[in-house]
């Protein structure tokens, strides 16, 4: 019979939204669960836990990543930006404001992932028009079907950045 004991916890440090956070995690804890359950940053969403929906997208060292496919222990020392870290001093990030202006969400559950993914997309500088935005944002599902408004919001933020 297999060993039924849980592996030892490993200490790690994450820099989350500019703040250094020390925690101990078992090796199988995903970055997503560490953020939601351990650091109480529930803005990052779990929609599938399989990298299929994009709701858990965060920025790691500036790149957009599915946090459900990332083990927390792999990111010791990394800089992580979640949806809670985008607004500065109460002023919304241009993407957050654009999402409100264009009604780029309904239920709001995919929204943090969409916005983090869009922030990563802008940083990549690969998208030049609507067709490319659609293609490069297709890893973030929205069941409410707000896609045209999401594209419009990203175009607004792109034109102002």
């Amino acid at each position, binding site marked *: 019979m297999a060993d*039924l004991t849980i592996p030892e916890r490993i200490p790690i440090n994450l820099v989350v939204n500019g703040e250094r956070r020390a925690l101990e995690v078992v090796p199988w804890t995903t970055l997503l669960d560490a953020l939601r359950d351990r650091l109480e940053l529930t803005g990052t969403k779990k*929609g599938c836990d399989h990298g299929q929906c994009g709701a858990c997208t965060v920025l790691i060292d500036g790149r957009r990543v599915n946090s459900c496919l990332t083990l927390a222990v792999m990111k010791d020392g990394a800089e992580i930006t979640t949806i809670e870290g985008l607004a500065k001093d109460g002023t919304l990030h241009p993407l957050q404001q654009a999402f409100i202006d264009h*009604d780029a969400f309904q239920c709001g559950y995919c929204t943090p992932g969409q916005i983090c993914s869009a922030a990563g997309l802008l940083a990549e500088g690969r998208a030049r028009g609507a067709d490319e935005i*659609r293609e490069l944002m297709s890893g973030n599902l929205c069941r409410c079907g707000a896609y045209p408004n999401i594209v419009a919001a990203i175009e607004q933020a792109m034109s102002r950045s």
Partner: protein
Amino acid sequence: MNAYVGTSTSRVDGRAKVTGAAKYAGEFAADGLLHGFVVEATIARGRIARLDTSEALKVKGVVDVLTHARRPPLADKDEAWKDEVAPEKGSPFRPLYDDRIKFNGQPIALVVAEDWETAKFAATRVRVEYEQEAFATDLESERDKAEKVDQPHKPRGDAAAALTRAAVRHEADYVLPSEHHNPMELFATTAVWDGSGGLTVYDKTQGVQNVQKFLCSVFGKKPDDIRVISPYVGGAFGSGLRPQHQVVLATLAALALKRSVRVVLTRQQMYGLGYRPMTIERVALGAKPDGTLDAIKHEAIAVTSRYEDFSRNDTGWAEQLYKSPNSNFSHKLVDLDVSTPCDMRAPGAATGVCALECAMDELAVALKLDPVELRLRCYSDRDQSEDLPYTSKQLRECYARGAEAFGWSRRNPAPRSMRDGKELVGWGMATGVWEALQMPVAVRIVLTANGHAEVSCAASDIGTGTYTIVAQVAADALGLPIENISVRLADSTLPQAPVEGGSWMAASSAHAVLGAAEEIRRELARLAKAMSGSPLADLDAANATLTDGMIASSEGRGAAVSIADVMRHSKLERIEKEKLNQFAEDKSHARNTHSAVFAEVKIDEELGIIRVTRIVNAVAAGRILNTKTGRSQIMGGVVWGIGMALHEETVMDHRFGRIMNANIAEYHIPVNADVHDIDVIFVDEPDDRINRLGIKGLGEIGIVGVPAAIANAVYHATGKRIRRFPITLDKLLE
């Protein structure tokens, strides 16, 4: 008066949603919170012969494993398990009730541990042995066992005879697969134990009071023992109408262990909840050479479970749309070893109207008539089933406005006649129809002397925009800026509301707000009159108006007085009024929303790849409370229609009675790249009969007609008629 109603006000909950501050059911913290993980049955029918939890219990961090043999008491009468929207006939499913297995994926145990990963790991250590029984899960092989349920509409004339003598006839089966809602949020419940037997239950639901009453009856609790809260819901689309497994399991575990417990279903486990049932729709149309109908026959055969009869009105929509002296409708069910289906966006209409509108397109081809022209020749100004006029029906205008915006007049009717480079181009259209329902809802308004109002109601906002329209209507009715209105929803202790569904919440909640605001206005008028030396001493309460924080007479007599002054003078800090709004019953008119949908597809003929490049959806749905969120509702419906036409299908392996694509990668929903131009047109439709504000609701109408318009466009592009949905590229290449 209308500073906000009818405008494009941005969502009042927008900031919470874009900053991550909005909390969903599985995100509420509690001291000593435990985590439950569900173990599911892996057979379709039979009984549990042996369930061994000993290994799971040995895992460090596991607190308990609940099973049918180890759990607190559960109600044993079916009535106790029937929630507000349970099917009339049947015995609702009871998680962990006994050893019977009714469907593959049924929850059979709940592993409860100190953290989620431990519970998940330990769940793999629960050993189950079954006694399997013969089962059936395939609608098509069991089609002959279909039994008729109550007819949706009385037959008129003799449709069979009229079909026999019809000059032009079209008859075909259209097959619509089972579909799953797949809201982005996982179904979750956090049941918070208060230390003395009471529970606060944060649940993903479309109706907190429905869940609260259900839990009280299932667990034999008093109303004060359980409070259900659901401030934000990450999509539901019908899947959250009935109380779901996780809320029973979390509550069960919290009561068993006297601790707070969270249960979150996995995406895979959510395929054991309700779904849109697979339906075979047989439509027969008989027409005269001039394009008028003489006969309509529509029969639907749908899946249900063996333990409940779930059926919706698939057939009979033609009674609202197309004149025909002879009609016959029937709905049949096949009992299978699956979980009970449930409502999914525009239940019945999304599927039934899809079949009807594909059939109408085929009839237009047979008659060599333009599809829009055929619909105009058959246009019905009355609901034929009850022979009633409509409170309003601007469908003709939908056809005209939609066709114009789309450029329909430039369509070459011949299939395969239009191209764009190497892609075939197809243009198709269809009609949509849904009901304009309204329900009793109560609202409480607390107006405070600082000019702020809190508006509260138990209704849910599942992303539909209820928070926003409630704020808009209240701001207008109270004459306050919308920033001074705060809205509280989805707490079972708030004033009465039904589940949010059927497109009824906009009209129902808006009129409840008006009713409560009316009480506030009367009270303010009474107080204003009573002020010593009041400039409004002659005020007739019925003529009092509230505008810009002032109360005045609508007749212009006397000066306006600020609401703040009235309250200060009356030594009142707050005025609280609650009112239940009930709509007068009026059976003299039919109440429906309508739409005309136009679709363009482009198809790579060699690869069979289909792109929906343009959709125009012209909707007549009474007054639109918020043009921004309203447009989003219709756009979302259109995206769902694209999914229904081209992508979505729950695929079952009938050898095991198990769903094969129970995840969100192999169950295809539209992604951003699948969606192109969507043009939403709201046709003016004043309606002073349906209700005071002329509201009809938008949640369902956006999807209805869209799959048929796309299917008809695919035919126009390729000359191939695909009657089995979704229209995937393999079917085009066959």
